[in-house]
């Protein structure tokens, strides 16, 4: 990999962006119209009404950034050691300059925002409305003390004036500043290879994320074309774009802000973060379900159906199980797993017993599950009497057939003349159906009354008992949104979880550091770390840390998902059964030779996989993520398909799957925002990105084999002797015992 060329190219690109691309955005209105700032102090105002802000120190930022970039580029021409030193220095300068510059920018905008709000309150006083309390407002304008923006908004509200949209909203860094930071980070990263011991872990990390990272970048690049094609530069009506530079600035800003919208809310605000975690929760479950299947050499496309069955079971348990919360809630979660597990075990059994391909069967079962859900939830099913008789006849015939199949002798006969039997049964059915379907006197339609169905427009069940509900985020902290709406700031004991986490880290770290250490000593020292940390954090006031709790559908199902990830990791990599599963996934014949019971493993793996998918019900039904604690027909089973993408992106490892699911959650949240923010972009841009990611990952990111073949990668990193790498014949993952039947 030619890092010198790569870094020089990035530096050149960044240099170009300093000239052409916005360095920061002063203001963004709804509809994504912006006023942007290019270094030094060139302002392009697409909103046509933003008062310019004087930002100090921009000249210095420009000069220093250019110097640092020149340094990064020039270093590429040097020899190994000086090169890395220069990269470290220039990288640090670049990052430092950008951070300092952004700090000054933020200060300037904050000040201007305060002044603007004050001016506007003053102008509101001149045109009073009956609801205003003029004294309060006047006091606000005259207030000598330094108020924060939140205090001003709160006081204005007391005075009867609601400020909904603050001036200079969306002031943030632009593409040029971002590229400076990225270039600086890369320069530091490659400069850090000056320190030899860092080389191996760095390389390994790079190689590990190469395929997913390249795939994501390629998909984002493809999205850029779409974004630019669909979305003209947002601007105020009547605003004319003059000259190519302004046009280019507009295009770059559109593109940048689209990406910014995709990620910034989720990563930068508590509400967005909570929402992305909430979107990620079901994807963790389905990702784990598909990933576990992959590991066992099974392709579980049936997660949507397993989700449905899990949801139905959870609903039944949550509605009818008597008892206290500590009993009903865990049992309801278990019911969700049971439902999904059974629905997953079915195709597993069909594969193990009859060699039926699980891919097709899981697809078919998805449709069956969807019909079942509709049958249960849509208006009470009505059967006309003759139709009911036909169904009864059908049931009898099927029953007879099943019995006949179970009797070995009859089964032999049927195998001998399958077509004859088929024809006979068909004729019998037709004749029988014609007879029973004749209307009889006294026929009345039969209405199946399902007790859990909620009457009304939407197909859904009644709300679950309170004992079966997982509280949503605000409720976890005892906030009742009906009393205190919006984002609440409450004191939360952060010290305890933080100390426990530190203790856990200490435990793991001690484990890594000196393996043969005695168990008791390790636990003891970890406990000591925990205690010390708790004491220290308490002293820092973390026991009552004020946390902003936004309204969100995030609920403890997320914790269940994390636990499931830990379970899958432990199960796959630390148990005998998991080892067998992985072995049969890699090479079924060898595993069978080694004593694994393939058939049993297939059923078990599909059952666990299904159970994981079924656990999504803890989010969508028990967790009330669809706005109420009920089973709804609209339960988004597409998550089951997205789970495939999540598992692929996560490389089928639990850690990877959790990260991939989080990325998907971020993009899902960002997609909604994109839809609202830009008039011409919809959420579908995101689904396109996700599909492309899957496609590129399937094609291994079009990367050379050095990155994609685990054996070759190991060799390239020097973990394996060269002779260990041969062209291994690829084993088909879905080779199973069914081959004998084929």
């Amino acid at each position, binding site marked *: 990999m030619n890092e010198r060329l790569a870094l020089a190219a990035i530096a050149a690109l960044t240099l170009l962006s300093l000239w052409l691309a916005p360095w920061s955005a002063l*203001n963004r*209105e*709804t*509809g994504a119209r912006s006023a942007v700032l290019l270094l030094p102090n060139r302002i392009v105002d697409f909103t046509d*009404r*933003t*008062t310019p802000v004087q930002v100090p120190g921009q000249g210095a930022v420009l000069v220093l950034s250019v110097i640092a970039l020149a340094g990064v580029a020039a270093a590429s021409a040097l020899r190994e050691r000086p090169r890395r030193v220069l990269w470290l220095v220039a990288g640090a300068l670049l990052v430092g300059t950008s951070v300092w510059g952004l700090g000054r920018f933020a200060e300037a905008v904050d000040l201007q925002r305060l002044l*603007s709000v004050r*001016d*506007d309150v003053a*102008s*509101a006083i001149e045109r009073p*409305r*009956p*609801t205003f309390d003029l004294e309060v407002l006047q006091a606000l304008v005259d207030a000598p003390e330094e108020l924060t923006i939140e205090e001003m908004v709160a006081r204005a509200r007391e005075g*009867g*004036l*609601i*400020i*909904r*949209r603050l*001036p*200079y909203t969306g002031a943030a860094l632009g593409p040029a500043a971002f590229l400076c930071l990225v270039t600086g980070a890369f320069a530091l990263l490659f400069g850090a290879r000056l320190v030899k011991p860092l080389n191996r872990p760095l390389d390994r990390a790079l190689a590990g994320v190469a395929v997913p990272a390249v795939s994501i970048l390629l998909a984002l690049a493809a999205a850029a074309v779409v974004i630019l094609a669909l979305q003209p530069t947002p601007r105020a009506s009547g605003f004319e774009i003059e000259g190519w530079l302004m046009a280019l600035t507009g295009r770059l800003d559109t593109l940048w802000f689209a990406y910014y919208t995709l990620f910034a*809310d989720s990563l930068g605000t508590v*509400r967005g973060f909570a*929402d992305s975690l909430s*979107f990620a929760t079901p994807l963790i479950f389905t990702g784990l379900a598909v990933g576990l299947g992959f590991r066992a050499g099974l392709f579980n496309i049936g997660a949507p159906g397993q989700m449905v069955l899990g949801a139905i079971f959870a609903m039944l348990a949550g509605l009818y199980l008597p008892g206290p919360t500590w009993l009903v809630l865990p049992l309801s979660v278990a019911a969700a797993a049971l439902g999904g597990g059974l629905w997953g075990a079915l195709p597993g059994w069909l594969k193990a017993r009859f060699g039926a391909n699980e891919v097709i069967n899981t697809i078919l079962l998805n449709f069956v599950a969807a019909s079942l859900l*509709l049958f249960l939830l*849509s*208006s009470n099913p009505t059967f006309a009497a003759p139709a009911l008789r036909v169904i009864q006849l059908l049931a009898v015939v099927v029953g007879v057939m099943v019995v006949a199949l179970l009797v070995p002798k009859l089964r032999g006969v049927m195998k001998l003349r399958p077509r004859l039997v088929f024809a006979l049964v068909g004729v019998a059915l037709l004749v029988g159906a014609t007879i029973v379907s004749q209307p009889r006197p006294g026929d009345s339609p039969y209405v199946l009354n399902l007790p859990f169905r909620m009457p*009304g*427009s*939407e*197909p859904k069940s009644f709300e679950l008992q309170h004992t079966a509900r997982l509280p949503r985020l605000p409720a976890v902290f005892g906030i009742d*949104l*009906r009393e205190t*709406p*919006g984002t609440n700031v409450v004191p939360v004991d952060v010290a305890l979880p933080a100390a426990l986490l530190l203790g856990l880290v200490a435990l793991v770290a001690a484990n890594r550091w000196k393996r043969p250490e005695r168990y008791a000593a390790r636990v003891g020292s970890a406990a000591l770390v925990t205690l010390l940390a708790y004491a220290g954090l308490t002293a820092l006031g973390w026991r009552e840390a004020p946390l902003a709790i936004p*309204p969100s*559908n995030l609920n403890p199902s997320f914790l269940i998902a994390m636990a499931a990830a830990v379970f899958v990791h432990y199960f796959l990599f630390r148990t005998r059964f998991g080892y067998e599963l992985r072995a049969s996934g890699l090479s079924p014949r060898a595993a069978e030779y080694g004593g694994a019971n393939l058939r049993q493993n297939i059923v078990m793996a599909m059952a666990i996989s299904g159970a994981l998918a079924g656990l999504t019900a803890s989010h*969508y039904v028990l967790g009330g*993520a*669809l*706005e*109420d604690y009920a089973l*709804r*027909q*609209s*339960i*988004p089973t597409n998550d089951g398909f997205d789970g495939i993408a999540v598992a692929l992106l996560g490389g089928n490892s639990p850690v990877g799957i959790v990260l991939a699911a989080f990325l998907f959650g971020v993009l*899902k*949240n960002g*997609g*909604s*925002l994109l*839809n*609202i923010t830009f*008039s011409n972009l*919809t*959420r579908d841009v995101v689904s396109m990105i996700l599909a492309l990611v899957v496609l590129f990952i399937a094609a291994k990111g079009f990367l050379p084999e050095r990155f994609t073949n685990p054996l070759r990668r190991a060799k390239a990193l020097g973990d394996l002797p060269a002779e260990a790498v041969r062209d291994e014949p690829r084993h088909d993952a879905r080779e199973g015992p069914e081959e004998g039947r084929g």
Partner: protein
Amino acid sequence: MRALLVLSLAAVLSFAFAQDYVFGLNFDAGGKFDDSFNQFTWQGMEQAIAELRSEMGLEIDLLEFEGTPETSASGLRTMASAGAELIVAPGFNQADPIASVSAEFPDTAFVLIDAMVEAPNVRSVLFKEQEGSFLVGYIAGSLSQTGVVGFVGGMDIPLIRAFNLGYEEGVLYACPNCTVLSNYVGVTPAAWNDPARAKEIATNQQAQGADIIYAAAGGSGRGVIDFVTETMCYRPTSPLRETALAAQLAQIPPYEAYAAACEGAEPLFFIGVDDNQNPLGDTDGDPATLNHGLTSMLKRVDVAAFNAAYDIVLGTFEAGTQVLGLAEEGVGFALDEYNEALIPQALLVELDVIQDMILSGQLEVTDYRAQ
């Protein structure tokens, strides 16, 4: 009904630095351009914004969102936290998201159409669909030449059953011997956007003799309209009823394709819904020739959206439940250049009488939902 609370806090405050108002619109299943429910709501909003701009010089942004069940609440939250004064949400599917989000954003006004949420900042707008459906049913029953008329419902829910029952009562009021064929596209929200299946249903209803088909199916209604404008006509297999339609048809020149394909046949008609869909029955761009839209049952969701926007700006927004029927001109039937030649004067007089009877309570149209 609960006491109304005036949200005067949402009143005008024009800041120099930003838009005067930001409104939000969260579409229901079926999407923005469904030629029906969603589109009609959107048109109401757009019209209000355009008029407010020209009349008062206000700068107003409309945020639009096409959500899915799991994203719709978070989309509503995003629009509310962007500072929207008003969020309009058409469709009963949105009742639960509106219920939770309206509680979280007490300063934002919400308008929910077709469902009811009781909250101090939510206006629920309901319609007496049965009354409008009764009128178009009366028209269909008076004019049907086969004595068989069709009804294609979208999602099988009480709301659409109310359309169905009102229509049926109207048809039978005009023609006690007529038959009404009723079918539904599906039982999920997908039924709002499955015109192919609606077309299949219309095909089957026509084969059973229906010559006028009423579609109350959101975006799926396009399937019924497509069937009617594509098939254009039917050849009667049994003797026709004598209705006033024959005399009207004699005066209307057929359009070219119809004249070529339908010599000696009788025309098919659809009845539109929500918006005035009569123009969709015009295949040659000339309203004077034969059009296939007999009439449309107007459900003025656009007025609901339009009024909400104006109420916010004028500071007269009131929460609570509004039920719009014939009396409030919230429902009705469409009469325009596309179908005035089809509907005889005498029938219009009868319709006037019936309207008066409904308004005075002499004639009661059953509300399926009240049963």
